């Protein structure tokens, strides 16, 4: 049930976004893709989610040729940078969305959906917010609704694009600890993208430092920090730590 990414190449019209990216992560890993903007980390995440397709290379996950599985069947819970909540739906409708669009045979009964929504609202500490609209929530609250919505489909994989990017420092710290706790509790293989190495190192079991469409170094935060393999990695850690 591990995740194996092998030699992914993806070119956009003018520039290569991914230039032969490979990595392996065990089931239940908490993996960070970190690097400057334009390094290809979001493209890799979107490929895992089925929102983008590589020109060549393969992805295997849960004993499946992952690229052959259409996005809607992957059950890869995706949390978008701008949350992408459904603006015209209440919080509870947002969270229930993934369950209500299931085919009739697979759809849980109404009461079951309502129960699950309550459970998830409790998990993300938003009890009583059922009837609010996204426009009535703060950034941190939207983020938590987005996560609850992704968790509602019982994802096989959780993908987060700059999950804390738009939040202020205090909320960010809070949500970080809390995301880690949820990961520990559910054990879902989680991949998140960030440009903030401090965040990546504090949160993840495995860190892939990316630059210009390639993985410069991949390993545990301790290893990467102790022995940066390339000047870029050394520089990246240095520069960011200096801020």
């Amino acid at each position: 049930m591990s995740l194996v990414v092998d030699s992914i190449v993806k070119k956009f019209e003018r520039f290569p976004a991914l230039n032969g990216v490979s990595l392996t992560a065990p089931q239940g890993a908490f993996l960070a893709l970190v690097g400057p903007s334009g390094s290809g980390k979001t493209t890799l995440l979107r490929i895992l989610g089925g929102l983008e397709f590589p020109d060549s290379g393969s992805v295997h996950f849960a004993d499946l040729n992952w690229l052959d599985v259409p996005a809607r069947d992957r059950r890869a819970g995706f949390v978008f940078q701008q949350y992408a909540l459904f603006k015209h739906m209440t919080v509870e409708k947002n969270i229930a969305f993934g369950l209500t669009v299931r085919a009739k045979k697979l759809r849980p009964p109404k009461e079951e959906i309502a129960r699950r929504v309550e459970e998830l609202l409790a998990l993300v500490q938003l009890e009583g917010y059922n009837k609010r609209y996204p426009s009535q929530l703060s950034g941190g609250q939207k983020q938590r609704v987005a996560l609850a919505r992704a968790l509602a489909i019982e994802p096989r994989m959780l993908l987060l694009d700059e999950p804390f990017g738009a939040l202020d420092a205090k909320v960010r710290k809070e949500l970080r600890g809390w995301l880690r706790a949820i990961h520990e509790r559910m054990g879902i293989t989680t991949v998140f993208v960030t440009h903030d190495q401090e965040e990546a190192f504090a949160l993840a079991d495995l860190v892939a430092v990316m630059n210009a469409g390639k993985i410069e170094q991949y390993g545990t935060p301790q290893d990467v920090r102790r022995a940066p393999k390339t000047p870029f990695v050394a520089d990246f850690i240095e520069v960011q730590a200096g801020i």
Partner: protein
Amino acid sequence: MKFRRYPTQDHPLSRIALSLIAIGVVTLFLVLPLATVFTEALRKGLGVAWEALDDPDARAAVRLTLITAAIAVPLNAVFGVAASWAIAKFDFKGKQFLTTLIDLPFSISPVVSGLIYVLIFGLQGWFGESLREANVKIIFAVPGIVLATIFITFPFVARELIPLMEDQGRDEEEAATSLGASGWDTFMRVTLPNIRWGLLYGVLLCNARAMGEFGAVSVVSGHIRGLTNTMPLHVEVLYNDYQFVGAFAVASLLALLALVTLVLKSLLEWRFADDIAATHRH
């Protein structure tokens, strides 16, 4: 204490002057002509105006206009949504070309648009011979009028929706897909609710034009009274016959339809202001 103005605030006199100019122009060019239409129609009393509207030819013109709009508007709503969905949510070759093509009816003179249909479907046109053999009449008949109207009103819905959908981006659709929604579910539950106000405006504008179009319809209609005259054409026929009251009575009815459209739009804007603001990103 000295009176201080905010830096962005103009002198009161210039504000008054600007307002007066705006009101003057609107009155002169919009309100007065509209008022004239109604006063001319009622010049000889309500009864005479009503008689002009009750005339069989006038009633046929109203019916034809309503039928034309009833066909053209739903079709263009569907075309418009499909085209703007394709343009805003997908990348493909020739996208720019398609966008330009949608604007074509706006940039071509309506008379030319009508002539195009005559050239294609008319007796001397490309398909004229085969259409005559099949006994299908398009030019100087209702199908031609409907076709010309569809062509003229094609851009309204798409033009309203493309910027809106591009502004909204693809995030919500992608989210829906990753949550397991099918393409149809994504469209019905996410895309359509997000564009419903834009769609409604587009449809209202499209309808106003479909009922009011003169140039293109005039070329393909043949002006057969009681058969192929729409309301705008009927107004012209009556006017040229010196039946001024009748002409203005039909014109008033047409103007009323436009006013109803405007009132409807404002009412919706006022009633659902919050909702409209919420479905726009900014």
